[in-house]
């Protein structure tokens, strides 16, 4: 069927394709390639030295921690929010759907400043927590909160259109056969969503690892303690350690490319499943 839609490329088509390729090459391929070239521009030794630094290890650890906490959190939140928006008649669900746009709409640096206003040590909540040996701002919890806040609706925004399109028919069937709501959710809804959920989670991971603006506000930039990988990249660049900055940038780029590959693989798997379903009845 898809052969029908394809035509022999003519001159105009070639022109459009070359413009598209030129744009992608200039804006994406060249900068990403340059990151790797700069990273290795002075050979392997500076790369290994950068990767052996204690502050680099600490930044990697903190970035990993922030992602390890925020990704499961936004995933659980995303499933819950998508459920409320698409499967319930709660009066607040439209409001929730609208609120889900807020983390996308506010600039990350503003998200960081909001945290200063809400959990800073001069606020009642922040003071109460700090007094109990649990500082939020300028410590790991603040960085995790900032990361979670900016990526809060990544999963929900991914799932909602999909769950809308799927409709509740399968869950209704399960319910009519005597399943409890919980059983219907765990045995019918979630398995159907497993691949899209993986797709959304990888998106949340990429967002969490790359977050700069909001974390920059709440970090305090204490070396070896509250610096994430993106913050350290900026600091190293400012300290004329260009190689170090590009080594870490290349590392983040590698993770991003790997997660893109996973996303693409998931999309292909989804497409196969859909095709199989279309054929089977």
């Amino acid at each position: 069927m898809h052969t029908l839609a394809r035509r022999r490329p003519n001159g105009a088509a070639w022109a459009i394709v070359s413009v598209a390729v030129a744009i992608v090459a200039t804006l994406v391929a060249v900068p990403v390639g340059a990151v790797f070239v700069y990273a290795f521009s002075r050979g392997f030794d500076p790369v290994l030295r950068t990767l052996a630094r204690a502050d680099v290890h600490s930044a990697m650890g903190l970035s990993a921690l922030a992602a390890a906490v925020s990704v499961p959190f936004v995933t659980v939140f995303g499933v819950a929010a998508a459920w409320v928006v698409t499967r319930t008649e709660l009066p607040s669900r439209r409001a929730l759907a609208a609120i889900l746009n807020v983390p996308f709409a506010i600039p990350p640096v503003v998200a960081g400043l909001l945290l200063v206003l809400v959990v800073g040590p001069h606020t009642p909540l922040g003071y109460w927590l700090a007094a109990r040996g649990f500082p939020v701002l300028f410590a790991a919890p603040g960085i995790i909160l900032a990361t979670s806040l900016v990526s809060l609706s990544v999963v929900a925004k991914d799932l909602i259109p999909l769950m809308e399109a799927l409709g509740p028919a399968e869950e209704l069937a399960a319910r009519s056969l005597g399943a409890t709501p919980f059983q219907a959710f765990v045995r019918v809804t979630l398995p159907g969503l497993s691949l899209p959920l993986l797709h959304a989670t990888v998106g949340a991971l990429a967002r969490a690892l790359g977050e700069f603006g909001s974390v920059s506000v709440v970090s305090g930039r204490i070396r070896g303690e509250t610096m994430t990988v993106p913050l350290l990249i900026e600091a190293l660049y400012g300290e004329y350690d260009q190689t170090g900055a590009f080594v870490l940038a290349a590392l983040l780029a590698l993770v991003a490319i790997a997660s893109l590959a996973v996303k693409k693989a998931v999309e292909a798997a989804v497409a196969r499943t859909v095709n199989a379903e279309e054929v089977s009845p």
Partner: protein
Amino acid sequence: MFAERSGRSEQSAAFPRFHAAMSRHSFSLCHAGAVALLGALTLGGCGKSTGSPRPESALLVAAYDPARTLVLEANKRFLSDELAAGRTVTVRESFGGSGKQARAVVDGLGADVVLLGLADDVNALADAKLVKPDWAKAREGKGAPYTSTIVFVVRAGNPKNVRDWSDLARSDVALVAPNPKSSSAAKLSYLAAWGWALRQPNGSEIAAESLVRAMYGKAVVLDATARGASTTFLQNGIGDVLVTWENEAYLARDERARAPIEIVTPSASIVAEPAVAIVDANVDHHGTRALAERYVALLETNEMQEAAARAHFRPRNAEVLAAHQREFAAVPLFTVEETFGSWSAAKAKHFADGGLLDRILEARR
């Protein structure tokens, strides 16, 4: 997506009981989300906490970017001195733009000692009641162990022939500078240009205003921090002249920047007096006052003055300065006080909201 929902609503109308069940279910899911959030916070807290209250032996130094090499050297020295005295301590450091560091401490960053580009940034901490109001007097003559000044950096060979402040106003000279709104180096650059213009034959406030208006009205890049402006000029290759700290200029020359550069010293410039202060509220809270006092005393030793000179700061100690005199251009320097009366007077006129700088930057738009 709302359009799609109308179809689903018809379906749900057909299964009222089912949807009532769904609604109840969604509540429990929200609760699950709340529990997950709490769990996340707890786990995060367990992972790594920079927490106050900290052990007596931990010191946090928040410094402005240009002091980085000096602070790292001081910290190394401090650790070995303390170890020699039988005390095991840890020193942690945080670097950023001077104003940004002051802001972070005001917002609750638990720094015990601050080393900032401007005394006025420490005044901001005094305004927030974190530092005693008479901190400057208490540290009479013992501020930062060094001074600096403002100079120009140009491309090799000085192709645009930039010699003095008046050249920065030329329309064919692309100026890169930090933004005086946020950067201490930039505030001093602005005041240096103003002070220079006042000191010229027939110098006047009008001439001074037209100079800074030309400089900041047409600057091609106004970065948030001095280091950001250095990066723009050196690593990104933008602009004909960079106005920055003398020590930043020398550091840039040392750091094998991709393009060769030259340093131009104007015919007169301003004295930059970075400031060291103990953050009283934080050391009292952490119980680290004695530690912080020993750290500040270390900065005042001749040894650290030598380290300051190596980092291209002008040592305060006359002997150490004399030993390094030929490394620094002999340039007539004037102070903020003798030119503007006081910092607060200069700030009120030039940098306050709605002040002259705001009007100049407004005209850029």
